[in-house]
């Protein structure tokens, strides 16, 4: 029995090493001087540390520009998807009307639409709209990719907020909009944060459309820029690892925020008192 317990723990630790190693290797490589990287010596732990790779990546042609492009496109798309998705979620969850079932199904199916397979018509459509090589085309597509997901997930979060809370506010003299704004919206906070983080990560990661629609280098997003690191960095693995670390950082921070918000469980016990 004890032997079994110990062996499970050992397996779990080995798995933890397997999952953590690439991250560890990315960060430590980013801090290693170039001469340590291209050498045949064996160093799992860095012997000397330098910030020069980060400086090199930061100052590399195109890094800041593509970072700006990525932020602009992702944030615009996610904000729009969140707003439009929230309106739809509230309607689907709180209101009763003809065709509601149809809308819910439409959202479910749209959420599973394989966007990668729509590359060709999207490309042609953006060409007709004269949006090729223009960032709004990416913002539009990322909006479309994340919208069904946002609407669907937010619907779940709205469902989770007891209607009695809104009704109580209406008894106390709030209008329907007032009740929604003062009661439901604040309680929806964590759900909105979680949804927006996942939507943001989707847009932040997107590669196929960014590669296909933005042929102009000035419009590259960060993933496309980083994928060409071998042309940008040569065999400068330190610079590539530093750039990857910088690319990972915002996502990691966002993930940690959601983790904390998700466990806080704001509505727990709200009706009991």
């Amino acid at each position, binding site marked *: 029995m004890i032997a079994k317990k110990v062996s499970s723990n050992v397996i779990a630790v080995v798995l933890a090493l397997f999952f953590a190693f690439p991250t560890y290797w990315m960060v430590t490589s980013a801090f290693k001087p170039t001469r340590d990287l291209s050498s045949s010596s064996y160093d799992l732990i860095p012997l000397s540390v330098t910030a020069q790779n980060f400086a090199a990546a930061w100052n590399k042609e195109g890094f800041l520009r593509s970072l700006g492009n990525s932020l602009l496109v992702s944030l615009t798309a996610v904000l729009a998807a969140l707003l439009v998705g929230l309106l739809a979620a509230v309607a689907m969850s709180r209101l009763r009307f003809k065709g509601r079932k149809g809308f819910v199904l439409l959202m479910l199916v749209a959420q599973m639409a394989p966007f990668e*397979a729509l590359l060709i018509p999207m490309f042609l459509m953006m060409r007709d709209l004269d949006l090729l090589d223009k960032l709004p085309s990416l913002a539009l597509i990322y909006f479309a990719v994340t919208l069904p997901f946002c609407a669907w997930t937010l619907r779940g979060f709205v469902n989770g907020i007891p209607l009695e809370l809104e009704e109580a506010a209406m008894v106390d003299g709030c209008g329907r909009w007032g009740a929604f704004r003062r009661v439901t919206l604040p309680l929806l906070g964590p759900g909105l944060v979680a949804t927006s983080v996942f939507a943001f990560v989707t847009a932040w990661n997107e590669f196929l459309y960014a590669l296909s629609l933005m042929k102009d280098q000035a419009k590259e997003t960060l993933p496309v820029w980083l994928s060409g690191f071998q042309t940008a960095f040569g065999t400068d693995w330190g610079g590539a690892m530093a750039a990857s670390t910088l690319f990972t950082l915002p996502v990691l921070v966002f993930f940690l925020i959601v983790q904390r918000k998700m466990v806080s469980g704001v509505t727990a016990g709200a009706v009991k008192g």
Partner: protein
Amino acid sequence: MTAVHTTDAGVPTNKSAPRRAAPGGAPRRRGSSFDRLLPYLLLAPAFAAILWLIGWPVLSLLVTSFRKLNLKELTRGEVVWVGLDNYTEILGNPDFWIITARTVIFTVAVVGLSVLSGLLIALLMRQVSPVVRIVLQVTMLLAWAMPLIAATTVYQWIFDQQYGILNKTLVKLGFDGFAGYSWFSTGTSTLAVIGLLVVWQAVPFLAFSLYAGAIGIPRDQYEAAAIDGASPWQTFRSVTWPELRPLVMMLTFLSMLWDFKVFTQIWAFRKGGPDGASTTLPVLQYLEGISKSHFGVAAAVSVVMMVLLGVLTFQYLRRLIKQEGTL
């Protein structure tokens, strides 16, 4: 799935209606017609966006797949109908069948491996001490959160021919043949590395979901099994598996959807190479459509992708829609 949430919020409340209506009109009626319209107003932006940016492209994809549309036709704005020519062209090409088979095998292997690993890790997490569990969860979160391209770049560095840590380690362990070994010289080996990367990033989400499902299984069922003297395998088969089965099915279905369309990693590694040996359907679609500007042919490839995806996920999709229909 219960239907508790459509209560009478949609019914107009007289409290709010008159306040919104203009004075002197017929407040009640105007209020209620606004209320009747409200859901549609709220849904209109989402509905319009989905029709425009998903519905229309799907339609246009089907139409394009029956047209000859290369750069010449595109710049001149010509519409040339060719019937099924695009389909006969791709289906008549033996390479296409190899690529299709490769895509299906890659998808099934990656999905199978990641769902199985996710399940095993979820069950393992129940057995280990809390500290070890938290460490494992944090490291999995790291793998999950890493952006695709960052992960791809790191894997290329780890698998690097000359200075990669993997080859160095293997040589140190006595496998001298791995000095300067190239992991990307064949398509199978390239896809194996890519598959490992995809599984590594997919397992955390699967393990977290299945762990959440596993800790929800009532404890007394296990106690009953223990009293009956069930072996661990019997306990798994008669207690754990029946409870987790629906969740495993859903996760398998979702993984199919996600892993079938893997493009980023394959392209970033070797652009479908060496010599096209790691090309899958999404890569082929990109090469035909965007690189060569054969939009009609590429559209036919996309349609085949959609059909295959439909076949792979049909059973589950049907059940899901039936279930949501009862909402």
